[in-house]
């Protein structure tokens, strides 16, 4: 019973990393300038690496010869349980940076807690990942400040991105039955406890960037239960193309 729940818990963490990694990889060779193109590709690689660690662990827990590749390439959108913020389209550069900033701030606080997990493998993955996420958060925070406190146009674009993506931020702090059980067993993270600190990071950066924080309205969730926005299916059709067209093709 616990193993099944742990599998689902780890799978969701793997899906979060995989889907944001895929989104960021779509910037490769399209970045606003060379250094930033490389930065986005680097962050994408970090997220793929993290996804691989989580999904390999999930595959071990699932047993029956399951592999990380199978989990990544042979599930449909209803079987993916990533937060819906991760799957939101890249939009313009401000849209991507705001999505990244919200996620980096969340990931930093989440991983800090996951280090204390009683599950050794989860703790090890968290210890490894937090170093990268700290770096990512510095990068995205700087961009929010530069864009917000930049020109009238960059300010308007980044504020609009914040307003549009705000509705997906509540989901990060929700807990379902799996989360509750994992928290009870001291394996998982109680996300409701990191909300205050997340708010603090967001408020500090937005204030320095001369941007305003939207009111909560029409907040959306459902990703953990496999209910996604229309964007995930398109993302998967691209990411999973090879395995769909040529099942079991090997590199």
């Amino acid at each position, binding site marked *: 019973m616990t193993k099944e729940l742990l599998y689902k818990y780890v799978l969701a963490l793997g899906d979060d990393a995989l889907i944001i990694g895929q989104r960021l990889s779509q910037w490769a060779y399209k970045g606003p300038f060379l250094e930033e193109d490389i930065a986005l590709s*680097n962050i994408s690689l970090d*997220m*793929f*690496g993290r996804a691989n660690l989580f999904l390999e662990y999930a595959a071990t827990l699932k047993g029956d010869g399951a592999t990380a590749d199978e989990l990544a390439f042979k599930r449909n959108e209803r079987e993916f349980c990533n937060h819906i913020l991760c799957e939101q389209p890249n939009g313009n550069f401000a849209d991507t940076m705001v999505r990244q900033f919200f996620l980096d701030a969340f990931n930093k606080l989440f991983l800090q807690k996951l280090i204390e997990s009683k599950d050794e493998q989860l703790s*090890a*993955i968290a210890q*490894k990942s937090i170093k990268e996420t700290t770096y990512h958060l510095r990068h995205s925070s700087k961009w929010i400040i530069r864009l917000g406190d930049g020109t009238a146009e960059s300010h308007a674009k980044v504020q609009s991105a914040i307003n549009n993506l705000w509705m997906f931020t509540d989901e990060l702090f929700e807990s379902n039955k799996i989360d509750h059980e994992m928290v009870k067993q001291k394996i998982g993270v109680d996300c409701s406890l990191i909300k205050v600190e997340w708010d603090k990071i967001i408020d500090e950066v937005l204030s320095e960037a001369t941007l305003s924080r939207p009111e909560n309205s029409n907040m959306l969730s459902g990703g953990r239960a496999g209910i996604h926005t229309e964007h995930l299916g398109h993302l998967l059709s691209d990411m999973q193309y090879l395995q769909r067209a040529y099942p079991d093709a090997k590199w």
Partner: protein
Amino acid sequence: MVKEISTDAIWELLKAIPDPEIPAVSIVDLGIVRNVEFDDDQFKITITPTYNGCPAFSFMKEEIIRRLELVGIANFKVSTSLAPPWTTDWMSDEVKSKLKEAGIAPPSSKVKCPQCDSNKAEVISEFGSTACKAMYKCLECLEPFHHFKQI
């Protein structure tokens, strides 16, 4: 089976494997090889990734296997460990000077230009051509250079 090769000899073999992206240093120099032991008729080699997303990591693992097989060693196993997480603190001073010679500023909170030793440098990009490096520019000799990020 009698242990014919010492673990020291295995270390020497591994020391000859360069990092595929920074060939000036070996995978042992970088602290990627964590342990070599002989147990249960088998050499157990433990390696750890630098960055989660480092694309060179699987290449390094394959290279270890290839080099050992090349000298006829078959009784070995390469496994990956994540904890404790890799840190640039594991690099010796000797390794840091090798990096500097190769034109890469070694990991430090005070970044110095590897060409002219000036400590006046500015970040061009926090992300360089590989996950482990950031791009800097020296404000004195004006040369751009890589800094091996301190993590």
